[in-house]
């Protein structure tokens, strides 16, 4: 089966031919399968944002190509527009893009642009609202009356309502409290499971990445530096740190323990795994 989304030698140069010329991304070759949950990490300026804006055709590559279902998204204008709907992109702090009078209308903006029929729009809006946990009575409220976390949910629902095959989120939990964070992540997982959608999430929180994604892409200086399961990537902690990145705190604890001479497994990255690993170390005495 062809991957749903692919990049082929994707390169983007800003300000080509001027003294400000700089390569934002170079020779990026990635492919995303249906139903995958992929994380992208990289320090500020590593090209993450540029990369994701190529995936739905907001930016036109200066070199290489982006393929959706094996077809170039730039092959014709209609298909480029279709890509916008099939690859949903949620920007950072998406609540700042809300503009309609009611939550309902704001969520309906995307589906309306798709040219759907009224009853289809209505269904999608309600479905999207339920995915992100917006209660029915809030649909007729002004989005500006809601709390920060609620606004973010509305904004994410606005993209989910287009029912994209690929959902890309740029730091969806930035600036939220722990409960809000977990809430949003649960919403995203629910959407992924229900639609068998591909989710691509950019995040700075290694814990969030570790406990959600099945595959991890590390960007550095506009190139893909590593890719693999979180377990594999996080064992290369020295390289990650040299790229200005971090590893989950629990992994740091375990690495330190090994440096102190304890025979621990350092490929843990969630507290649950850590607990299990420590229990086996004690001789597998089970849950005491």
């Amino acid at each position, binding site marked *: 089966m062809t991957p749903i989304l692919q990049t082929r030698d994707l390169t983007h140069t800003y300000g080509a031919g001027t003294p400000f010329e700089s390569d934002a991304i170079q020779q990026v070759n990635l492919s995303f399968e249906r139903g995958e949950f992929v994380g992208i990490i990289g320090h500020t300026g590593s090209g993450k944002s540029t990369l994701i804006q190529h995936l739905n055709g*907001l930016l036109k590559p200066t070199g290489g190509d982006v393929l959706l279902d094996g077809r170039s998204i730039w092959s014709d204008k209609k298909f480029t527009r279709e890509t916008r709907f099939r690859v949903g992109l949620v920007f950072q702090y998406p609540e*700042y893009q809300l503009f309609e009078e009611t939550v309902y209308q704001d969520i309906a903006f995307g589906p309306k*642009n798709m040219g759907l029929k009224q009853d289809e729009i209505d269904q999608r809006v309600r479905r999207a609202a339920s995915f992100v946990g917006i209660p029915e009575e809030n649909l007729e409220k002004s989005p500006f009356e809601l709390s920060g976390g609620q606004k973010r949910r509305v904004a994410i629902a606005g993209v989910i309502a287009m029912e994209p095959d690929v959902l890309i989120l740029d730091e969806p939990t930035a600036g939220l409290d722990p409960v809000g964070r977990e809430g949003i992540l649960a919403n995203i997982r629910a959407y992924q499971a229900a639609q068998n959608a591909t989710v691509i999430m950019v995040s700075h929180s290694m814990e969030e990445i570790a406990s959600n994604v099945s595959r991890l892409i590390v960007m550095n200086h506009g190139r893909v530096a590593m890719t693999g399961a979180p377990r594999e990537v996080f064992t290369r902690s020295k390289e990650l740190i040299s790229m200005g990145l971090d590893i989950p705190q629990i992994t740091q604890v375990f690495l330190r323990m090994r440096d102190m001479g304890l025979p621990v497994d350092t490929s843990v990255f969630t507290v649950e795994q850590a607990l299990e690993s420590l229990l086996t170390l004690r001789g597998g005495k089970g849950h005491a």
Partner: protein
Amino acid sequence: MLKDITLGQYFPGNTPVHRLDPRTKLILVVVYIVALFSAGGVVSYAVVLAALAAVVVLSKIKLKVIAKSMKPLLFIIVLTGLLNLFYSQGTPLVSFWIFTITREGVFNAVFMILRISMLITGTFMLTYTTSPIALTDGLEKLLNPLKRIRVPVHELAMMMCIALRFIPTLIEETDKIMNAQKARGADFETGSLMQRAKALIPILVPLFISSFRRADELAVAMECRCYHGGDGRTRLKELVYQTMDYVTLIGGVVFLAGVIALGHFGL
């Protein structure tokens, strides 16, 4: 796209032009504009142009940058040129259909285009080489005498400073919002004029809201640092005229007098 706008932008540097006192530069711009409008002939235009060229070279601002900032005003410049070309009375050169191009028309058009471009470039040189803070400081100092007649000079200067400071921020914000709405299928490029105007609502509403939020945050931040207007406020960097400033100012006066004199003789 939007990022390419360089209007009112400051390009840091350490050239003689950058080092001049902002008051000197403000006065010079006024002198320059007066000179430009009193120039009446080829020779006086050449003198003004030479002065401008000297400043551009000294400031090390690239011609490409200047050309880029002219772009949004290109329409006005071309329109003015065309109007002058066709609507001047005098000796006809060519004529076709209802149009007649006269010798005077060609002259007028060339001079008008030159005048507007030089006006724009000259004033841009001020903002390119002076940081917004220095600029408003200079303006405040220059307008200080008006305080006697109760003009809120400090407040005006502060407002201008803030406005200048937020131009790039607003442009960046607009870009972001546009992208976010495009990702939801908003279309700004096709459709009738009415549809395109309507398509702006999803950009303008969030932009207004974020501007108010920003203004509010800025006001709180300023109050937290005990800002309470201009009374009794001292400065970290007092503006002091240097020898170079006096030399430049005298040079400016001589330049203006020269151009006016040349204009007087119709050169």
